């Protein structure tokens, strides 16, 4: 075991490189991996956004011919798949990576190389999925890929193969990250940081990670069946052989509903940590917020069939899932009241992170209310497959997840870069987003209730849809503008923004005890924690001193290129299902070599 003064040591020629492409490929530093996740996911957020813009242009007026029905199907499928798997989940993962070790007082995650592996698998899987646009057509069956629309008979092209294999690859990335963060949070906490002293974001990451490791195997099995059906001619979803296509729906939504919470819980965690800082008050009812999050995590497994009311599962199943769905609204409501009570009587400072956090609460309430409406099967039957549902998911995923993520970016950008984002541009970004988001999605409630079906490439004139679709399209350009403001703000501020210093917001949690940006080893000495908001306590000064005062040797894991090669091999192996054995077999060999080299790589 070596004692290193240089923060990062490495194996091989790249030993001390800390800049340049090679250093990024071999990095195992959770902060750099967090940045990689964030930048990559934001690029895919833009790609998914571009797909949405094209969809809205097509729908700007009735009987438009901007894109063909076939391209339209590809666009909405890839928009949904991209936003869920390539944008929101990895944006959350970016926060997990960057913040969890800082918040719990650790020097890195429990398995740094596994962490790098997760990122590379995600990147390669995302590229693979999007290659389909250029190599035979993107998937066109909806992000939920209902059977037997996905069968060889009805989807003869390669799009569905890309979709199924791509999701398998991405699933491996999520699973590896899930295991890693469970162990990190359970095992790598600073002395004194009991579970009930962890920041809420850490708690929500823990719940999310458990949801990931239990939900993804289910979709893995469903996709295995689908791939067997398509590649070998089995009958898992072929009704003629006695199979029941509804099996796909059960497996998909048994994954899909926990997935909804995988998308929203991290944003709830972010907001729960931002509100106290900008209200200058500890979080109201911390234990109840945590227990509500855990309860949502459990209940998320018992509501999946509310996505399937229109299947006709019978009154008993419908009643059961209606009740569980109504029940899960309770912990969500509890959280909302706790957030409001946190602000109540506080000295509220409406800086941009706080604006986005408050915007999150407002929009998420609206998305939550339309969600509760779906819990009633008769109401749901009217709303299924209409724009009402599109409005609902965008209020919870855009108004919820994305607003929460933007709040987090404004809050922690100073920690990550050492520079403040421009506040005026931040306010402009917020108001543009808030207004155009509502212009885009609010009318969808009404066109939905009027009966406009989703996932259809056009509509007839004079059905009462024209005006509202026009405004939805106008709104989407407002969102584009707001994102451009944000991008300009980031590009400008990362080099020329005001210097942030250690703790620009007066935050209570451990990440604010160390310099911005943090040194590679995070904490010179890991401090002992005695409370939930350590920096707000009497011994806060002492904790800051300890965190920056070197008292002993620091061991950091060396860089490694094996995670990247293992990820490359695994992606090649799985993409061989589409491209053929000449990609799959070399991939298998590369993967095995990389895994063995990884296993026996000296790490001290």
């Amino acid at each position, binding site marked *: 075991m070596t004692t290193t003064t240089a923060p990062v040591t490495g194996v091989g020629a790249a030993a001390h490189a800390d800049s340049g492409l090679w250093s990024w490929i071999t990095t195992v530093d959770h902060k750099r991996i967090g940045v990689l996740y964030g930048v990559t996911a934001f690029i895919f957020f833009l790609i998914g956004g571009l797909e949405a813009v094209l969809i809205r242009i097509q729908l700007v007026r009735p009987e438009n011919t901007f894109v063909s029905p076939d391209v339209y199907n590809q666009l909405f499928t890839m928009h949904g798949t991209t936003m869920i798997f390539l944008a929101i989940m990895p944006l959350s993962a970016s926060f997990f990576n960057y913040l969890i070790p800082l918040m719990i007082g650790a020097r890195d995650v429990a398995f740094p190389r596994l962490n790098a592996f997760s990122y590379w698998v995600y990147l390669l899987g995302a590229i693979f999925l999007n290659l389909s646009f250029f190599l035979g057509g993107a998937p066109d069956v909806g992000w939920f890929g209902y059977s037997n629309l996905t069968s060889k008979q009805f989807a003869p092209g390669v799009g569905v193969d890309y979709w199924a294999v791509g999701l398998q690859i991405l699933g491996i990335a999520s699973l590896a990250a899930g295991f890693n963060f469970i162990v990190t949070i359970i095992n*790598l906490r600073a002395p004194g940081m009991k579970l009930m002293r962890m920041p809420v974001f850490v708690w929500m990451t823990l719940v999310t990670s458990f949801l990931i490791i239990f939900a993804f195997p*289910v979709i893995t099995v469903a996709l295995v*069946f689908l791939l067997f059906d398509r590649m070998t001619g089995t009958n898992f979803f072929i009704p003629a052989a006695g199979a029941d296509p509804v099996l796909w729906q059960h497996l998909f939504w048994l994954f899909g509903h926990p997935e909804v919470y995988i998308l929203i819980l991290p944003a709830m965690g972010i907001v729960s940590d931002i509100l106290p800082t900008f209200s200058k008050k500890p979080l109201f009812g911390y234990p109840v917020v945590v227990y509500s999050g855990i309860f949502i995590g459990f209940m998320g497994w018992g509501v999946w069939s509310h996505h399937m009311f229109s299947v006709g599962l019978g009154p008993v199943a419908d009643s059961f899932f209606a009740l569980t769905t109504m029940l899960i609204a309770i912990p969500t409501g509890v959280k909302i009241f706790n957030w409001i009570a946190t602000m109540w009587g506080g000295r509220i400072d409406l800086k941009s992170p706080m604006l986005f956090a408050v915007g999150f609460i407002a929009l998420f309430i609206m998305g939550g209310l339309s969600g509760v409406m779906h819990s009633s099967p008769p109401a749901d039957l009217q709303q299924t497959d209409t724009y009402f549902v599109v409005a609902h998911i965008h209020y919870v995923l855009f108004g919820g997840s994305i607003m929460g993520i933007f709040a987090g970016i404004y809050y922690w950008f100073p920690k990550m870069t050492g520079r403040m984002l421009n506040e005026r541009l931040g306010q402009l970004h917020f108001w543009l987003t808030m207004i155009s988001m509502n212009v885009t999605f609010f009318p969808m409630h009404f066109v939905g209730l009027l009966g406009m079906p989703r996932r259809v490439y056009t509509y007839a004139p004079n059905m009462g849809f024209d005006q509202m679709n026009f405004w939805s399209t106008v709104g989407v350009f407002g969102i584009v503008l707001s994102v451009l403001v944000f991008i300009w703000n980031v590009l400008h501020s990362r080099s020329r923004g005001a210097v942030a210093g250690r703790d620009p917001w007066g935050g209570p949690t451990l990440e604010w005890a160390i310099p911005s940006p943090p040194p590679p080893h995070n904490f010179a000495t890991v401090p002992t924690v005695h409370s939930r908001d350590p920096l707000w306590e009497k011994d806060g000064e002492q904790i800051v001193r300890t965190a920056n005062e070197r008292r002993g040797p620091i061991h950091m894991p060396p860089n490694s290129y094996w995670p990247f090669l293992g990820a490359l091999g695994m992606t090649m192996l799985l993409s061989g299902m589409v491209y053929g054995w000449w990609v799959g077999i070399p991939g298998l060999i590369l993967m095995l070599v990389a895994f063995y080299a990884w296993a026996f790589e000296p790490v001290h």
Partner: protein
Amino acid sequence: MAVAAHSTAHEHEHPTSTGLNSRKLLFWAFLGSECLFFGSLIATYLVYRGRDQVGPHPHEILNIPFTSVSAFVLLMSSLTMVLALAACQRGNQRGTAIWLAATALLGATFVGGQVYEFTEFFMHGLTLQKNLFGCTFYVLTGFHGTHVTVGVIWLLTLFMLALRGRLPAHKALDVEIAGLYWHFVDVVWIAIFTLIYLIQ
């Protein structure tokens, strides 16, 4: 799998918050995840049972005496796995090597039995595409067989390490984690054997 088999990276490095070893904890989480994986496969088999439009049907070709023997072989491999771990913890590398080899051999025998069974069924007309029994049975037991095969490769890797004297007592955790995986695969087989072979 190789992830967990890696050398003793973190073993003596950091004391953890819970006192549990991080690799072991990761592996327990992984096995929890695997429960859902096999659970979904088994549930699908059960949901589709008796819905075949054409034969062969399970009761016509499942050979319970034969599979009972191979199930017995696999269960015995859990015993040898325990003995391998015990030998390793005592610092007996020779014994570790012997018991690891025995475990791998029993596992390989089980996989061999599965290859024979699949061939027999194929001869009797049960292809992957024939009916729902064919696809659900082959995919479920095939994934289990793949898990056993991965386990055999893992055990052989540890066996090579033990032969070269690279599994001293302080590396017993490497054997223990492989053992966790191996016992899990055994337990899954108990569920499969009971639900698919014994309860028809």
